[in-house]
């Protein structure tokens, strides 16, 4: 049909936007030859990242994370419950990831996004196996009461790298989390103590405390296309070049997850090493951004 020739001839006549829609792969490859992407980023650079802590005032811990246009809102609510019999001195964390129709034109109400349960499960596995939260810290009275933390992450804008933004929002929400003060009332039940002046009830924990975080996980998604490795893809890039590798490292450089779900491009050792090196750089950037956000909150 002569399509490659047709695009070559048309490229001088067709407008940039039309060319982008009609021949997306050629559009991107023209940019990749110059080692740059359509949004003027070099191949290895991630988009601008911001974290805002305390976005949801009524939650015990919350954060809003933005990587470029991808926006995630994470909120944690704590509830007291009876611990399970096998682990009487451990609390529990329940992680859920939602993609409401606001986030993307392909998500419609009543038809849940395909990506949502997958990202939810990945997040759950990563956070629970990272050792960031020691579940024993969430225990109140051994065998009788422990904290259950419900972490909900809502995607407000889905523009690629959903897992990265969701993990960042979750981690930021945990760093903002304050466990409320509770005390044991006469029936032996745990209640929230609103006032601190009550002397007839002995509080179980003296003051609102922050959770001690162990090693914090950070991640980076890269797209492999021929010999190029693009860090932090947008939704457009993800839909055109389908092979993605997500590397999760924690602050002590341990590999928590190397996730490559299929894809036409095979990953050789050199490509994996490059992805891991890009992730190490990104971990340092994200650590700095998170520390700035936390110290910004403490000043208030």
């Amino acid at each position, binding site marked *: 049909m002569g399509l490659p020739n047709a695009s070559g001839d048309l490229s001088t006549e067709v407008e940039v936007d039309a060319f982008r829609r009609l021949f997306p792969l050629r559009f991107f490859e023209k940019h990749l030859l110059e080692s740059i992407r359509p949004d003027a980023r070099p191949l290895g650079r991630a988009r601008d990242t911001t974290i805002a802590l305390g976005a949801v005032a009524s939650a015990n811990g919350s954060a809003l994370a933005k990587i470029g246009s991808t926006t995630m809102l994470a909120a944690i609510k704590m509830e007291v419950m009876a611990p399970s019999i096998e682990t009487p001195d451990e609390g529990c964390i329940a992680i859920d990831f939602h993609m409401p129709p606001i986030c993307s034109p392909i998500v419609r109400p009543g038809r849940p996004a395909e990506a949502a349960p*997958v990202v939810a499960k990945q997040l759950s596995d990563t956070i629970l*196996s990272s050792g960031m939260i020691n579940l024993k810290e969430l225990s109140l009275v051994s065998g009788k009461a422990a904290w259950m933390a419900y972490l909900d992450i809502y995607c407000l804008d889905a523009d690629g790298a959903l897992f990265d933004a969701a993990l960042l929002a979750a981690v930021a929400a945990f760093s903002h989390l304050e466990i409320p003060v509770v005390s044991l009332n006469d029936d032996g039940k745990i209640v929230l103590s609103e006032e601190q002046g009550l002397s007839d009830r002995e509080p179980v924990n003296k003051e609102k405390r922050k959770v001690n975080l162990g090693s914090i996980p950070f991640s980076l998604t890269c797209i492999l296309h021929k010999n190029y490795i693009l860090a932090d893809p947008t939704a457009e890039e993800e839909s055109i070049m389908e092979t993605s590798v997500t590397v999760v490292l924690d602050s002590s*450089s*341990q590999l928590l997850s190397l996730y*490559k779900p*299929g894809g036409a491009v095979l990953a050789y050792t050199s490509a994996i090493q490059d992805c891991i090196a890009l992730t190490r750089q990104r971990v340092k950037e994200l650590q700095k951004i998170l520390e700035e956000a936390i110290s910004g909150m403490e000043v208030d």
Partner: protein
Amino acid sequence: MEVDREDGRSQNQLRPLACSRNILHRAHGSASWSQGDTKVLAAVYGPKAGTKKNENPEKACIEVIWKPKTGQIGKLEKEYEMILKRTLQSICILTVNPNTTTSVMIQVVNDDGALLPSAINAACMALVDAGIPMRHLAVSISCCVARSGVSGLVILDPTKLEEQKMKAFAYLVFPNSVHSVLPEGSPSVQGEPIENGIITSVTHGTMSVDDYFYCLERGRAASTKLSDFLRRNLQQQPTNSSKAG
């Protein structure tokens, strides 16, 4: 220092493999794959006309349905469906039958560790049985990091008990090994033969970066053995296409 495995295997020894094709007569292709006690049944229907709403009509589409042994379909099943779909899409030649859907059904018969690798192997054999055009086969292996550090120990094909006890495990999928008739050997990309490339990798638990690369090495060695098993199996069992004779 060797690690004592409960069933007496050495660290690089796989469980006994068994594979039979064309076991379901209504399906266009079917296969049953078992590694030790883990057994998975895969059935392929297709290509059928039409693609789903959000899929590209210029290519063939692959749909995966995963049925667990017990219980309702939850996030784990959805995740496995997505991983399997993307893995199979990368090995099938999608431009041969555009605007068609091929359905792959996976039924878990028994889960004793290495479930996802068994399912990928079973699905690949079922696709061969159905005659779906493919670039190469997908050979899948499970590796477990028993001990980290200098005396790192990676064991292959862990059982469910071993997976739960160990620090971390990885499911790896490689293309099958190439027997080349060319005098210069098989083509290589970036100095590495094609069968060293990773199609899919899913890890669980914390391991160091060096442990992961060690898993990759062990996985590649094991995938050569698995490729030989597949080759022998496919050459031996001709598909009984005509029952009339």
